[in-house]
């Protein structure tokens, strides 16, 4: 049997970077194949080349044994290749259903669209992914996780023989991930060839049959069976050595001074009775299911949403924070947004212009004079520590790999050196090695006397990082406790708090049930 997809010696370079230096890969029908590598290793570039979004400079692509050369994405779709790209590619003002069947609309021209048929069919694909969304809703109203699921539904709707998925689970929670995996296994059993990219190694070990690892644009291993490989085997293939396992000490002291405290805060967004203390020197983890209101709380703190009741205190004194500008420059509070493309980075600007944006007004001299060198002196150590892989400081952020974009969005807040740092889903799309460094970095910041609030849907991460954990559900804090660091114990405790809260929306309780089942 010939492989569904056979790549040999693919090369591709961009100005200043050689992204792929001869990569090969063999994808068999009826298997789920993992494609791994550090941030910037070339995974997404490879996928873009296979799907005709970019053209290779050298090498050969064979589909079912026949060499092909796609000039544009349409040809790839027609050749039976479906794809979920790393970045969201939805049309915000279109309905969910239309987005799912967009390629169908792309190939039609003048015959009017039958929207009820479109929405009916879209419902079918949404059901398969166990999603209960009205296909008539506009995509612009959806949250990140749901938008990601919509793209997956789009790829499924093409019913392709080859399915490429670039970090499809990056912003999904456990229940959605499980639904996706059930679907993928079913497809595999029907003979579909699936290429799966993720930085969550547990998922890889659970789902995949074979693995190809890229390192610096080359093959570190080529289509090897996954059976018998361990987590550390994979990691050492990715980074070329064994992974250092961070051992982060936990803070159990309660006599630290309180930096930021919320006293029975209510917001226009719907939060009620939020009491939370952030002490200087500790990391507090905030967990909740999607839509629990964690990001909204962070936004209210930095002045993007109105506080309707209660007060925010800094060092014990009540304050009113009117804007992120005040939050940063007057009160020293930083917020790393979860939505890196819209809010985290400026895609069309260079790395330096992004990382410097939080410190310009601090570094400026007379008449606002500011030299690049001044900024570089401050930000270069941060960029080095996070290993931002860019060809130069002027490289546009939109040309960075997804993980490196995330690093830039973190780096600018690390450079800002605020007293309070709120990080929202900080490690989405970041590779295992950098994630470990980042965790160390956060710890170091805390030990230096900063207060850190980590919002994350990644429970292992939260349990690794936090000194204390707070659980939020339906815009209320339902529990606060010390973190023992024991995953099993803590995850049970967290889920117990979430279940104790009175359910109001059916979708959300469904989610929690699925989550509980998963853990």
């Amino acid at each position, binding site marked *: 049997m010939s492989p569904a997809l056979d790549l040999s010696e693919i090369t591709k370079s961009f*100005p*200043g970077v050689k992204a792929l230096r001869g990569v090969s890969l063999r994808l068999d029908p009826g298997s789920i194949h993992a494609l791994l590598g550090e941030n910037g290793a070339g995974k997404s570039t490879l996928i873009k080349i296979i799907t005709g979004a970019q053209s290779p400079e050298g090498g050969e692509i064979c589909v079912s044994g026949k060499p092909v050369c796609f000039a544009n994405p349409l040809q790839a779709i027609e050749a039976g290749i479906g794809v979920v790209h790393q970045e969201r590619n939805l049309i915000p003002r279109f309905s969910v259903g239309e987005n799912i069947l967009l390629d169908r609309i792309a190939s039609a021209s003048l015959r009017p669209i039958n929207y009820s048929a479109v929405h009916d069919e879209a419902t079918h694909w949404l059901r398969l992914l166990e999603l209960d969304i009205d296909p008539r809703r506009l995509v612009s109203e959806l949250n990140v996780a749901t938008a990601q699921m919509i793209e997956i539904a789009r790829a499924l709707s093409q019913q392709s023989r080859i399915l490429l998925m670039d970090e499809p689970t990056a912003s999904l929670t456990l229940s959605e991930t499980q639904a996706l995996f059930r679907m993928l296994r079913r497809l595999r059993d029907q003979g579909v060839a699936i290429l799966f990219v993720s930085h969550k190694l547990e998922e890889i070990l659970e789902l995949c049959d074979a693995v190809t690892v890229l390192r610096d644009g080359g093959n570190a291993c080529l289509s090897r069976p996954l059976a018998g490989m361990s987590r550390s085997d994979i990691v050492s293939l990715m*980074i*070329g*050595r064994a992974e*250092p396992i961070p051992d982060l000490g936990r803070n159990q002291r309660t006599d630290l001074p309180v930096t930021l405290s919320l006293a029975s805060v209510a917001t226009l967004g719907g939060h009620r009775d939020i009491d939370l203390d952030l002490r200087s020197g500790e990391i507090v983890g905030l967990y909740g299911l999607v839509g629990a209101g964690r990001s909204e709380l962070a936004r209210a703190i930095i002045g993007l949403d109105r506080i309707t009741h209660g007060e925010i205190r800094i060092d014990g004194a009540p304050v009113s924070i009117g*804007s*992120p*500008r005040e*939050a*940063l420059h007057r009160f020293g509070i930083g*917020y790393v*947004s979860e939505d890196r493309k*819209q*809010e*985290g*980075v*400026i*895609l*069309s*600007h260079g790395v*330096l*212009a992004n990382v*410097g*944006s*939080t410190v*310009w*007004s601090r*570094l*400026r001299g007379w*008449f*606002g*004079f*500011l*030299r*690049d*060198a001044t900024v*570089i*002196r401050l930000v*270069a*150590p*941060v*960029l*080095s*520590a996070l*290993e*931002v892989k*860019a*060809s*130069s*400081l*002027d490289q546009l952020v939109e040309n960075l790999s997804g993980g490196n974009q995330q690093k830039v969005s973190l780096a*600018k807040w*690390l450079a800002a*050196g605020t007293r309070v740092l709120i990080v929202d889903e900080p490690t989405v799309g970041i590779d295992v090695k950098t994630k470990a*460094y980042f965790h*160390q*970095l956060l710890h*170091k910041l805390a030990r*230096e006397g900063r207060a850190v609030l980590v919002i994350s849907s990644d429970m292992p991460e939260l349990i690794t990082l936090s000194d204390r954990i707070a659980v939020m559900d339906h815009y209320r804090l339902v529990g606060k406790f010390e973190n023992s660091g024991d995953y099993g114990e803590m995850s049970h405790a967290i889920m117990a708090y979430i279940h104790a809260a009175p359910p109001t929306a059916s979708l959300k309780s469904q989610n929690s049930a699925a989550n509980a089942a998963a853990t």
Partner: protein
Amino acid sequence: MLEGLPPAQGSDATETQYENAGRLGGKLGRFLLSSEFGLLLLVVLAFAGFWLSTRGFSSPFNQFGLSRSAAVNILISLSMMSVIVSGGLDLSIGAIGVCASILAGWLMEACRWPAPASVAVGLALGGLLGFANGQIIVRTGMHSFVVTLATMSVFFGGMIILTTAKPFDSLPDDFSLPAQQHLFGAVSPLLVYSVLIACMMAYLYRLTAIGRDMLAVGANARAALLSGISASRAVTLCHAMAGILAAVAGVMLSMRNGAAIPSMAGNLGQDWLLPAFLGPVLGGASLSGGRVSVLGAVLGAVLISVINNGLLLLHVGAFWLQFFLGMLLLGAVMIDKARMRVFASGDRR
């Protein structure tokens, strides 16, 4: 603050590496690919072409006239560019320019103010009107197109009400002197002023915090806001700056005309609009904001002035001139595109 952190193994991404990578690597190559270089090439090409093919282009008299109209064109382009930075646009710059020069004219003629003080007050009015635009946009959240469309009528209409459309034409001699002086026999001092102002703007965008704020807000207002940049302040400043620059252009035009005239920028000041956009856009500015080039806008404006002047001298059929203007412009951008392709393929090897 980050010293003492275990350096990431396998990576010696040190401070110096980033510094060098950013500053030196491929700088020449990037310049050759830039639209600034393309424009420079086109300006030289057009200049040489007209110099050789027409009688009169090279005469000091013509060169003087050319430098004077280029000076105004440059300022108009820069004025619009300073709003394009923020991702908006300003239809009212012509109206602002006229209002400012009319105020200066009134002060000189009716109030017998000295020229410098009158000009200063005129420029202040320009800044104020631009500031008003910015404040309305920021406070109501309406698109700058609609706001400046309306304020264009309001500013211009207000000026017409106050002056009943009468020009101020007995201005002191020292006012229009800069438009009459010749440097090196063939260059207007106005061009020098324009270039100086352009240098100041380049300084603003490259070397000041507020200039960077403007660029960041223009490219992605939400991201800038969340980085602690005040988007409303940056947008307001962009508009105020556009107002001042438009006022300078207006004052220069009235220096040249020797009078402050309501009609000098056409009805509602609309004659300025197309040249105002064309300069920055040719210069590589992105109309969606966040990316501009001062040098590019200046060269764009100069190119337009040269083509205009040269075509007038070429004796092409009177009414067909616009046709040739369009064709020449198309030809210019096509040549530029071809240049990019050639250099880009050379770059890849």
